[in-house]
């Protein structure tokens, strides 16, 4: 698998939270290259199972949904009012090119109502109420093609290759980790496993975490690992809030099973992969949060590559670190043996 090409394709497909069908269908096709045991659930999670029907079942999850916007109303002049879906910073929107996914996809531009018409002063941050989406058609035509509830996504562009294997694109959060799942499948296919592994591209992580909750409930795995991006260094951020771009981040804290963390750390050490550790007291802000409390409690782990400028159209990541994430995961899964239950036991 060529990871860059896979990421390019994944990031080009629309899949705003709650409407992941297009990207889900492509992922389903990809999973079929590695296993015939592929299925989808009612809310669109895509699953693919590999490995043996012995030993424990491990659920690996990366979310496929992306942040975006939704049409809330159509003005008399045909311009669209919007509301964010997921954690969109309205300040990054003005001047953005978007795609309105109505009955017919329409390119659009996000504009701001001039400051003198709104209560805000020049220099104040734009609020979503101050912004409109202009699709360039008269109102009658807009009304025929676009309705309240239709999604708007950032216009896809091919990823931009920067120096040193850095890549920039929209939606690297978390599609680049969907590609990591595929690399894992490829790596593990060649190995004799003592467990089965379900890979899941989940829906709705950016809002409610619905996909993570339903995925963990329906698969009911013996352990679950979320893979999601963390923050790379950006100027002005306090110490210990970010991770160097060349390190794989492993998380510790109440959301993470202490022993599963140790297994992941061992897998990294064995392969000489540099890691960083983050301590999170409560919510990790990932699918691990709701997976952990399904079905009477599921041991959870979290593996993350650092990413800069999260939730913008220029999210930036380092390719080598993505490969290292795949190596840590497949190393850990490959090392699972019949002693797994003892290894996870909290009584000692």
């Amino acid at each position: 698998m060529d990871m860059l090409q896979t990421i390019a394709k994944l990031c080009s497909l629309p899949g705003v939270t709650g409407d992941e069908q297009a990207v889900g269908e492509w992922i389903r096709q990809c999973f079929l290259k590695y296993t015939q045991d592929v299925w989808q659930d009612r809310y669109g999670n895509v699953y693919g199972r590999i490995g043996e029907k012995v030993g424990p079942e491990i659920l690996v999850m990366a979310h496929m949904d992306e942040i975006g916007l939704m049409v809330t109303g159509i003005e008399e002049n045909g311009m669209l009012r919007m509301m964010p879906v997921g954690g969109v910073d309205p300040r990054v929107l003005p001047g953005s090119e978007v795609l309105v996914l109505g009955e017919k996809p329409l390119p659009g531009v996000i504009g701001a109502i001039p400051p003198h018409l709104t209560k805000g002063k020049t220099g104040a941050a734009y609020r979503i109420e101050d912004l409109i989406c202009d699709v360039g058609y008269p109102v009658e035509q807009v009304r025929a093609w676009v309705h309240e509830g239709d999604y708007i996504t950032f216009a896809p562009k091919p990823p931009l290759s920067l120096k040193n294997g850095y890549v920039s694109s929209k939606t690297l959060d978390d599609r680049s980790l969907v590609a990591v799942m595929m690399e894992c499948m490829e790596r593990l296919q060649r190995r004799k496993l003592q467990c089965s592994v379900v890979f899941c591209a989940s829906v709705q992580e950016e809002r409610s975490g619905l996909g993570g909750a339903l995925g963990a409930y329906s698969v009911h795995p013996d352990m679950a690992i979320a893979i999601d991006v963390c923050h790379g260094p950006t100027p002005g951020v306090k110490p210990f809030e970010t991770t160097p771009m060349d390190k794989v981040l492993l998380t510790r804290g109440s959301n993470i099973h202490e022993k599963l963390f140790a297994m992941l750390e061992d897998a990294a050490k064995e392969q000489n992969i540099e890691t960083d550790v983050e301590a999170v007291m409560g919510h990790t802000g990932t699918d691990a949060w709701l997976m952990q409390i399904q079905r009477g409690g599921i041991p959870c782990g979290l593996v993350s590559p650092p990413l800069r400028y999260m939730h913008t159209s220029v999210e930036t990541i380092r390719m080598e670190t993505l490969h290292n994430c795949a190596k840590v995961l497949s190393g850990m899964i490959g090392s699972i043996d019949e002693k797994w239950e003892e290894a996870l036991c909290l009584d000692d």
Partner: protein
Amino acid sequence: MFEAMLKKVLQAFGPSGNEGKVASVLAEEIRPYCDEVYTDALGNLIAHKRGTSGKKLMLSAHMDQIGFIVVDIDENGFLRIGNVGGILPSLSVAREVVFENGVHGVIYFETPETRDAKAVASLPNMYVDIGCATREEAEQKVQVGDMCVFVSNFVDLGSRMASGAMDNRVCCAILVEAMKQLSSPHDVYVVFTVQEEVGLRGSGAAAYAIEPDLNINLDVTLTGDTPKMPAMSVALGKGPAIKMMDSSVIVPQCVRKFMIDCAEQAGIPFQREVLRAGGTDTAAVQRTRSGVLAGCISIPSRYVHTPAEVVDRTDVEQAVELLRAMAASKELPGA
């Protein structure tokens, strides 16, 4: 319209967690149209009408209303209160409230300097005056832990009507009326849920037990058709709204399509609703077990969470029609 029944349902006492009275009224109204009526551990009222398709359709609406709970009684007989659900403190001042046992009171607030309720009223400095001079006297009438709700009249505004508790008793009444009229190939479970106003607490448990193939919830939504309201396309009188998204939930595409198709085929006008703030039981149902398909019909309503919630009669009647159309559909989404 079913105004007499609606009025009865509107007047029944039922703040979150104390829905016994309203459940009794609803049980009596709906019993003739179904095979069994029962409540679960949380107090959700469930009315079941058998079908033949082997599929289960759950129709739901919360029956609780917002109110206040007495947290302390001071030596001069004033009742200190906490909110039950999304109370707007400044709009509660000088309002009349009533307890389950019929004791009435009025709400006011500590007034050290100003009488501008908007500036100073907040729950910790508000109280209920039930006309008692001492703690002992007050305790004869009301105990710490008792709840009260706004007293409100039914106001006939012609094609529209106003009352407190329209949220969500109007939807309870719609469900009763729909159950009276509908015929469905499916097992229909009408669920009047508890404790929606305090965080969508009842519906999940009901859905867990029923395991429906589809849930259609009914609740009120806000409108953008009053002076200076923030842009929102929903208006009174343009038909029931089909929910696309609110801050708690996204309705899946297959459910949206099912609801819109049903409305269009039956020639029922409808609106598409995207609500910026506010949640509904649908969210808790979607999350049940390995996921239940769920959508929501919203009744456009002005002045929600005040004693003067306004809805349009045509929207209400058309919501009944829409429910009938959906219940009659042989195919449910997601099959």
